């Protein structure tokens, strides 16, 4: 189970990374076409249709898919100034409360994101650019990212109850 969950966070995080690289490649190709178009006129097509839309959707997908991976590696920031001065038991208590709050919020967001995706697919919503992209596709990826984050939060919560010590320490100070 542990292996499976860590693998899940790792793979979704890696896909998010690949998406960032893909945005970079896509935009670079567009710049290249701009340059070639300026130098040689219209031999090649001058634009990658809807490249701005595609970049935006890949960014949304990347941001949400990386949520769980970022959580587990202590990348989501919080103000832990007061926490550090407290006894370990109190720290565990506050960590428990903040995980319960986060699980509730992310659960709530996941539920309504599912409704949004469902509605979007039902009505066949499309992007308004040159290429009509069915919005249900990028929205589903966003939903999957939220679901994996929810799993990671519950996972962390269970781990906290078992070990009775804070699981997610922040990134070290440099």
């Amino acid at each position, binding site marked *: 189970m542990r292996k499976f969950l860590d693998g899940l966070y790792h793979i979704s995080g890696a896909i998010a990374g690949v998406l*960032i690289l893909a945005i970079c490649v896509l935009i670079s190709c567009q710049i290249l076409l701009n340059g070639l178009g300026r130098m040689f006129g219209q031999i090649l097509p001058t634009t990658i249709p809807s490249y701005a839309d595609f970049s935006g959707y890949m960014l949304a997908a990347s941001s949400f898919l990386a949520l769980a991976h*970022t959580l587990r590696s202590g990348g989501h920031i919080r103000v832990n100034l007061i926490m550090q001065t407290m006894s370990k038991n109190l720290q565990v208590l506050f960590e428990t409360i903040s995980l319960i709050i986060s699980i509730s*919020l992310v659960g709530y967001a996941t539920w309504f994101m599912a409704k949004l995706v469902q509605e979007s697919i039902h009505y066949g919503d499309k992007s308004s650019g040159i290429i009509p992209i069915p919005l249900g596709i990028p929205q589903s990826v966003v939903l999957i990212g939220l679901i994996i984050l929810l799993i990671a939060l519950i996972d962390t919560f269970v781990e906290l109850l078992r070990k009775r010590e804070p699981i997610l320490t922040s990134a070290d100070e440099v």
Partner: protein
Amino acid sequence: MSDPIIALTLLGLLIGLLAMGVWVAVSLAIVGLVAITCFSNAPSGLVLATTFWGHSHSWSLTALPLFILMGEILLRSRLSQDMFSGLAPWLGGLPGRLLHVNILGCAIFAAVSGSSAATAATIGRMSVPELKERGYPEGLILGTLAGSATLGLLIPPSIILIVYGVATEQSIARLFVAGILPGILLISLFAGYVAIRAFLNPDLIPKDNIKFSLREKLRASRNLIPVALLIIGVIGSIYAGLASPTDAAALGVVLSILLAYLTGSFSKSLIWDAVMSATRTSCMIAFILVGAAFLSSAMGFTGLPRNLAAWIGDMNLSLYALLAALTVFFIILGCFLDGISVVVLTTSIIMPMVAQVGIDPLWFGIYLVVVVEMSQITPPVGFNLFVIQGLTGINILRIAKAAFPFFLLLLLGVALITAFPSIVTFLPNAMSG
């Protein structure tokens, strides 16, 4: 409950959640949820999902992860080290020495990027480890970085000036030009402050006893060539019309990979480490951004910001009194909303007031940006603080303390452009001939 009481309650809730150690993004969304559920009749869950989706895929946001990635690659290759060793001999005589790299680095990068978060992330990724290693005081490293990175908003291109220009039908080109002199003014204020601190307290800055001859200086400067090429490539592509400012971020990544390859520090694992690190940082920022967007939308539904702004309008203040009141209002609002939200939520009410007392909307746009810059470094919600905490692991309250002098310098900047409005209007007026 009256509006000021509601606002204070929500602010209290936000501080309480953050103090308990709840993640920043979650805290913002919870406060939004409470506000929209208790003080409006909009369906909170659907609005939450719509804002999360609607604010996660904007085109102008795509530059952010790319600029962060560029910073990560520069950090991992020898390029950032080279930049500092190339600059060190030249800045040896200036009080504050390499701290000025933070200020000027941010200023140069601000000419490429439209956001202050990207500026803080990219420059900070390189400069914080370098300066710490050389023994510079933490307070000034963090302060100069947090403060100067806000210039990303003022020096063109600027996302927030675009938002203001669209909302108020001002020419974006003119707003951009109007931002240049105030940007230079703020750079001078920051650099002057660092120089005076260093001059008054010579022990503050690590000694650099080696004296360089001109020949040695020039030889050291060869180290600057790669980074200079990078900057010229990125800025050049924009002004040659090959790339929009957002496109240019991708070019920055490609050029930094190329330079890493040419200087022999390239490896696949280096690039992948950089990608994953950039992915985590940009995910952290994106999560906070959507949380903040939901809070902002919730505030729109409750009508709080516009009611508070209208309350100022009802006081019928004179020009300077109005500006003073608005500055206080924006500073308070900027403590718990992000800058773009402050602008879109209040312009409807503020612009008529501003017009009534005869303030030039072009000047007001620049004033607003400088005020919004302050909000980037005030706790609890300050994006530069978040980014720098993400980079260094140092708590935002400690970063905010280090940034406080720069907050005051921005305030001084506001006072100066108010006293001498031509700092703002001179260039755009010259442009129209």
